[in-house]
């Protein structure tokens, strides 16, 4: 097998954090690869929910959009989008929300709205979609994102969704009762918030990654947990399953017919 790429490592490490009993909200741009890898390996009964209304879906290939037909074909049920946001997300039925970001700060606050000023942006990004309420309504939030100085910034340009604010008990002070960001998986490391300050700290480095590499790709001074471990490498099963999933997906999206089509 060819060597594990950083992206594969990130996906596999994120998948491991999901369990069989989780009900996961897979928002736009979120790593549905990680969610489906978990389903295809150690968490076969995990419930995946896409904001298009598909509940308990089990796609054979990764959807390109969050509303591909296969999500509905394989779902336990498909509800309207208002119902999805009212009964299922706002109703507190989701245990884990998965978010990606264009910019993130050390407290897990996220920007996917604009680079630059809101009214005269340097880059107009797609916007938040479901993120503002995913960030506050799900039991906890997992974030996956590749590290870079452009993305890991001292100060985000726009608060698309709230993480831990300026740290400490900021969430509670806003009346938010959910945990917020509890896990950040990057191509280099696994981060978790410090129990007191809520600042993300590195808890494990992927094999071969140095502290210098982590700092070079991060716009703030990186803090480490007291004990920093090495992230366990992917197993053969994880890697094979992920690669097969991507191969099926690539074939389907490049215009070939889905193999499951009847």
């Amino acid at each position, binding site marked *: 097998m060819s060597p594990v790429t950083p992206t594969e490592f990130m996906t596999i490490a994120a998948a491991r954090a999901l369990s069989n009993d989780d009900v996961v909200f897979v928002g*736009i741009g979120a790593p549905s690869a990680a969610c489906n890898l978990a389903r295809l390996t150690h968490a076969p009964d995990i419930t995946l929910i896409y904001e298009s209304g598909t509940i308990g879906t089990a796609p054979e290939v990764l959807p*390109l959009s969050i*509303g591909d037909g296969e999500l509905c074909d394989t779902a336990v049920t498909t509800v309207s989008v208002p119902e999805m946001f*009212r009964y299922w997300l706002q109703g507190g039925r989701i245990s884990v929300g998965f978010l990606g970001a264009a910019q993130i700060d050390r407290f897990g606050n996220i920007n996917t*709205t604009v680079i630059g000023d809101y009214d005269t942006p340097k880059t107009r990004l797609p*916007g938040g*979609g479901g993120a503002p309420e995913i960030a506050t*309504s799900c039991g906890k939030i997992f974030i996956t994102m590749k590290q870079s100085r452009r993305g890991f910034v001292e100060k985000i340009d726009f608060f698309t969704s709230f993480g831990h604010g300026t740290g400490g008990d900021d969430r509670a002070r806003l009346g938010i009762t959910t945990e917020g960001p509890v896990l950040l998986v990057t191509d280099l490391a696994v981060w978790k918030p410090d129990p007191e300050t809520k600042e993300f700290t590195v808890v494990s480095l992927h094999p071969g990654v140095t502290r210098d590499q982590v700092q070079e790709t991060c716009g703030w001074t990186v803090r480490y947990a007291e004990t920093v471990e090495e992230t366990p490498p992917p197993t053969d099963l994880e890697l094979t399953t992920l690669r097969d999933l991507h191969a099926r997906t690539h074939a389907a999206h490049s215009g070939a017919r889905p193999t499951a089509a009847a």
Partner: protein
Amino acid sequence: MAQFQDLAQAIAENIRPGDTVALEGFTHLIPHAAAHELIRQQIGDLTLIRMTPDLIYDQLIGMGLVKKLIFSYAGNPGVGLLRRMRDAVENGWPRPIELEEHSHSAMAQAYEAGAAGLPCAIFRGYKGAGLKAVNPNIREVACPFTGEALAAVPALRPDVTVIHAQRANRRGDVLIEGIIGVQKEAVLAAKRAVVTVEEVVEDFADLHPNACVLPRWTVAGIATAPGGANPSYAHGYYDRDNAAYLEWDKIAADRDRFLAWMETHVLKARPEIFQDRVAGLRRDAA
């Protein structure tokens, strides 16, 4: 009461310059054929509403027909940014565009409030979110029982909602199934609704009693437009053309290439071309 019309007539009779229009569809059943007819008729100064403005709104914006956009996620789903919209926002090309930006939850609940005849939607949202500071249409209300501060947004009430559905029966009732998105809410919230359908059938015999059906008296015009959702899809009829979404990223990257594409594929085209486009995407096509 639903009138069966051809697409050009349904658009011409129901959409006027300056109208607030929602062409809805959450990835599935996006009314591409209707949007292209709107572009051919050059009906401009529109305020467009949609949770997920994607290719058709990129096209309408790029053709200069849009004054304002009310939205919650403006992207080419799974591919990237909307390059014509970016050009309008960042550079004012071909004209500046006003934005009213919300979250999905807010938009979904605002459509719901519109369908429910309410002036506003009240929900638990926007806590700690930056949009509150830039959108004066995000306000707060205190729960009169618990005192909790809840977010409030105005109900969405389009002049016209346009959707694509699987089929109508001869009486004019409309069936939507699969990923049903916010289409029912968008239709019921609107003053008028135009629906394109894959086909018209005699009746909906043996349909599940709780399937999503819009009775004929909630719809103004129905036009048959087979393939009319392409490159989006119609559950039970044809698949999503994911390759076309990837291709759009290149077309929209350049103003000239965009204009040339629109000239060939929209301005000089007819609604009938959609049927050909989906021929290879039908499940029974192999």
